[in-house]
C-alpha cells in the first residue's frame, strides 16, 4: 500500500483503510492524514456509508425460493458410526440365528415325517420312504443317518416292514463316495445290519464329477441311477413317502 500521494491519499488506499486491510504503520499514517483533512474525512465517510449500505441491502436476501433449512436433530458425532456398527452386528446375529433355526426346523420336519411314517403304518404293506440328501453339511448328514437308523431299528423291533432308500445327489453325493464320505464305515455297518436299506447315487452328479477329473469311488453297495430327479418322481408315483434334507 505505497500509493500515497503528496496531496492526500489515493482511492485504493482509502478503500483499503475502510476495509481494514492496512498494516499498523500505514493505518497510523492514514489516521494522521484524515484527521487533518476535511475532504479525506468526507471520502472515508462516503466509503463507509457505501459499504454499510451494501451490507444492509443483502443482509437478508429473502428472495430465496428455498425455505429455511430443515432443522436436524443434533445427534452426537459418534452416533452415526455407532448406529451403523449396531445395525451390522444385528444383521450378522439375525442371519446366524436364522440359519440355525432354519436348520433346526428342517431337522424337526425330518423327524416329524419319519414319525408320521411310523405311526401311519396300519396295514401289511411295507412302508416305503425315499430320503434325498443334497447337502454335505456333516451335522445334517449325521442327523439324517441317526433318524434313519432309529426308524429302521424301531420297525425291526415291531416286526413291521420298511423300505428305506437314501438317494444322494449334488453336494450330498459325498455321503456315498468311498473316498470322501465321513460316514462310510457307519453306512457299511447299517447296510449289513438292515437289508431293507438302499443307497442310491445320482448318475448325473457322478458323471459331472468325472468330467471335472474327479476319480469317484462309490461305497460297495451304492447303486447308480441315471437321474435323482427321475428316481424320486418314479418313487412318488409308486406311493413312496419323500423326505429331503
Amino acid at each position: 500500500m505505497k500509493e500515497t500521494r503528496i496531496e492526500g491519499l489515493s482511492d485504493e488506499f482509502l478503500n483499503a483503510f475502510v476495509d481494514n486491510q492496512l498494516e499498523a504503520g500505514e493505518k497510523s499514517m492514514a489516521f494522521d492524514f484524515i484527521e487533518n483533512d476535511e475532504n479525506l474525512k468526507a471520502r472515508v465517510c462516503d466509503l463507509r456509508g457505501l459499504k454499510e449500505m451494501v451490507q444492509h441491502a443483502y443482509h437478508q436476501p429473502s428472495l430465496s425460493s428455498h425455505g429455511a433449512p430443515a432443522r436436524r436433530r443434533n445427534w452426537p458425532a459418534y452416533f452415526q458410526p455407532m448406529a451403523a456398527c449396531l445395525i451390522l452386528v444385528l444383521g450378522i446375529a439375525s442371519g446366524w440365528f436364522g440359519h440355525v433355526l432354519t436348520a433346526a426346523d428342517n431337522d424337526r420336519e425330518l423327524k416329524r415325517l419319519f414319525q408320521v411314517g411310523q405311526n401311519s403304518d396300519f396295514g401289511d404293506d411295507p412302508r416305503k420312504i425315499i430320503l434325498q440328501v443334497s447337502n454335505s453339511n456333516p451335522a445334517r448328514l449325521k442327523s439324517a443317518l441317526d433318524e434313519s437308523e432309529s426308524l429302521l431299528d424301531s420297525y425291526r423291533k415291531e416286526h413291521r416292514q420298511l423300505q428305506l432308500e437314501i438317494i444322494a445327489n449334488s453336494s450330498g453325493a459325498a455321503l456315498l463316495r468311498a473316498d470322501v464320505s465321513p460316514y462310510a464305515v457307519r453306512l457299511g455297518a447299517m447296510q449289513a445290519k438292515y437289508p431293507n436299506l438302499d443307497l442310491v447315487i445320482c448318475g448325473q452328479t457322478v458323471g459331472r464329477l468325472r468330467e471335472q477329473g474327479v476319480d469317484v469311488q462309490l461305497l460297495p453297495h451304492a447303486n447308480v441311477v441315471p437321474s435323482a430327479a427321475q428316481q424320486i418322481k418314479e418313487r412318488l408315483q409308486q406311493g413312496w413317502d419323500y423326505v429331503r434334507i
Partner: protein
Amino acid sequence: MKILSLFCRGSEFQAQLEAIRPKLYRVAYSWSHNSALADDLVQETLVKALKNSGQLRDPELFNGWVFSILANCWRDHFRQYREMDDIDEIEDFQCVHEATPEDAHSQSQLVLRVRNAVAKLPLGQRQVLTLVDLEEMSYIEVAAILEIPIGTVMSRLCRARAALKATLNELAPRQVAPVAQIRRVK
C-alpha cells in the same frame, strides 16, 4: 477408531457446509440477482464441495475453498449461457430504466436501489465488492478465490465503489418540484 474418526469428519464437513449455505446464497444472489439461479449455483457448489471434500487439506481454508468453487460455478454458468445472459442483461437495463410506477416505487426503497446499483456493476467489480463487503474477506482471499492479482482486486473495488456511488445518486428519488397552483384569471 480411524474409521470412526472418518465418519465424524464427514459429519463435521457436512455441518460446515450447512452453516455456510446462507452465506453462499447471499453472495450468489448478489452476483446474479436471480433467486432461482442463486439457488442453483449454491446447490451445484455444495455438490462439488461434497464430491471433492478430499481436496481440502487444511480445514482452516474451508471458507475460501468453498467460495472458490462458487466462483468457478458462476464462471461456468456465465460461459455456458453467455449469449443468453448478455441479452437478458440488455433487457434488464431497458426495463430498469422504464419510468413505470413500480420502478418509481422500488427506487424509493434503499435496499432495492442498492441492489439495482450493484446489479449494474460489471461482473468482475460486482464479485470483488460483494466478497469484500458482504463476507468481510481480505483482499488476499478475494484474489485467491477469483484467481486475479491483488492489485486488480484493489482497482476493481475502487472502481466499483465509485460507480456505485454515482449510480445511487442517479437512482435517488428526485424531489418533486412544487407545482404552481392554477389560478383563475378573469
